């Protein structure tokens, strides 16, 4: 018997060792891939960075014929479209999640929830085609003329809504992105709201709190970390989204004061131009755009992590 036990234990140990090695190598593989991608991008982008130096970040000019490239318009477009998308999608996503978890009649909960998840399953190219053929003409005919007429003349923010209504442009791209990231934000927020123990909420109601007070003072503080996670997931998608944006942004390497004007994003420029980029500098400038996107996304994720850490620490010290 002891012999058999020892054998069994040995098998267990070797199994453990095998399992440990397998998971470790999987983890290392991911790190290696990340490092490899970063290295390949940097090598590919080196000619552009060494040729244009810091000017690559501050110039708007993008001319394939004279081989002059600057990333400013693409960086601006990427950040601006993502910002518009988040401004619209976060409040709506929050509302959807609150409604689904706190206010929705039980019978409606599943159908609405499934519908939102289905929205997340639509391929981005479909959003692009829909954006160009359906949304853009509607925006051009109704929303944009209204914005130009009513918000355009206002001081301060008016310049964001001036100029001709083209239908496509930075604002349209932001709108399509908002629709695309909404299901991610709503679904994650709903899931974290559902983890709030009923006891907590019921004690809130027991103290005579209104639904709003329970949501704002019990549910939201309890699920803060998860909410930020959901928002970051959405933001990550908004920053990197390619196809849908390429369709509706207007493909113009320009930084315009107006949100209605056509622009471009990093990923849209790469998708549009890589196939016909000839010459080292052109190709390399596009890869350099890729490096910038990599950097922007990394910064966003790092910032999110940092924010979460702070929130957790504050929550702990509050206890």
């Amino acid at each position, binding site marked *: 018997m002891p012999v058999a036990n020892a054998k069994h234990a040995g098998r267990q140990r070797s199994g453990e060792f095998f399992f440990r090695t397998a998971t470790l190598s999987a983890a290392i593989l991911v790190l290696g891939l990340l490092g490899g991608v970063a290295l390949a991008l940097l090598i590919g982008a080196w000619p552009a960075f060494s040729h244009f130096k810091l000017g690559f970040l501050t110039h708007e000019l993008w001319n394939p*014929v*004279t081989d002059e490239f600057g990333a400013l318009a693409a960086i601006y477009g990427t950040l601006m479209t993502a910002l518009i998308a988040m401004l619209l999608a976060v409040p709506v996503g929050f509302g959807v999640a609150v409604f689904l978890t706190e206010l929705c009649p039980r019978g409606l909960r599943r159908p609405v929830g499934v519908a939102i998840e289905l929205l997340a399953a639509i391929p981005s190219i479909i959003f692009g085609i829909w954006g160009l053929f359906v949304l853009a*003409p509607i925006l051009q005919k109704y929303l944009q003329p209204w914005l130009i007429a009513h918000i355009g003349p206002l001081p301060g923010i008016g310049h964001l809504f001036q100029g001709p209504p*083209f*239908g496509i442009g930075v604002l349209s791209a932001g709108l399509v992105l908002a629709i695309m990231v909404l299901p991610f934000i709503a679904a994650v927020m709903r899931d974290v709201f559902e983890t709030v123990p009923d006891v907590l909420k019921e004690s809130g109601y027991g103290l005579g709190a209104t639904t709003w007070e329970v949501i704002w003072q019990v549910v939201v503080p309890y699920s803060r970390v998860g909410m930020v996670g959901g928002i970051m997931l959405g933001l990550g998608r908004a920053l990197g989204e390619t196809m849908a944006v390429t369709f509706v942004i207007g*493909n*113009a390497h320009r930084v315009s004061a107006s949100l209605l004007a056509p622009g471009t994003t990093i990923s849209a420029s790469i998708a549009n131009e890589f196939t*016909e980029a*000839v010459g080292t500098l052109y190709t390399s400038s596009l890869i350099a755009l890729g490096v910038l996107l990599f950097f922007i996304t990394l910064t966003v994720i790092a910032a999110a992590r940092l924010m979460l850490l702070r929130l957790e620490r504050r929550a702990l010290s509050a206890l």
Partner: protein
Amino acid sequence: MQRSNKGRALAALAAAGAVLLGCSQNSSTEIAGAGATFPYPVYSKWAGTYKQQSGVGLNYQSIGSGAGIKQIKAKTVTFGASDMPLKPADLKEAGLVQFPMIIGGVVPVINVKGVTAGALTLDGPTLAAIYLGDVKKWNDERVQKLNPKLTLPDTAIAPVYRSDGSGTNFLFTDYLSKESPAFKDKIGANASVQWPTGIGAKGNEGVANMTTQTDGAVGYVEYAYAKQNNMPYALMVNRAGSAVAPSAESFQAAASSADWSHADSYYLILTDQDGAGSWPITGASFILVYADPPDPKATAEALKFFAWAYKNGAPMAAELSYVPLPATLTAQVESTWTAQIKSNGAPVWKGE
């Protein structure tokens, strides 16, 4: 590195295509060219017929004149095609020979509700003002003055431009620079320029689609694209002051005044020509090959195809509303080939 990979991928694709089509014995003699999208419709039509007759195929990538010039300089293709002629000095420096292949016209296309093809008239200064962003609405008095009988809507003008390096861009901006000093100052003529306003689209096809898609848009495409897609085009007031419609005849009228025999390296731009019937945005499309080709056999095949097209291609070109070159000019070009394109001192092309 990128380039050679692309070239290899292209070669592999071409080979695969040849095998699939069951003419593998000719895969080595497939002519490889790249460049202008402007003449692409007629080149592909010629290539189809030529392949039936000779078995030699043409692999032409319509990637834009700017890219075509770069491809031939990188020697990934046998010939490059450009609507923007290279200056004689640039040709000499790169060791290239240039000759015209076909003449066509760039046409402003519009998408204005209630305005049909040929109903709207524009002139150079107004078109330049539209692309500069100075004329913003269709009922602007400058547009209205040219079209006293038309009721124009209060719609914003959405200028659509070619975002890639293209000969169509060159012809269009060259014409507008000749017509408008402000345009020449602020934008200038090139295959790719910095547009102060408007929507960018890729290729003639992209501009055609974006114009059709956007209410109030104006764009510019090669005539064959406007014709094939039934796009409403605008008439243009030419240098002589008369409004002309785009057609093979008006392109021909613009080309007839060209003095090819005295043009060094055929460097001749046909925009804004005199003559009451001349279409103002007319241009020739050029072919670029090496004077001392790295692969003389391939270049000989390409020249054979061009000679065939000069001789037999005219009816097909006319069908697509291009203007074929006159016989005197093609004879001149062929003598240029024998005189200038040589390998080890012997002409690459020996006539038919």
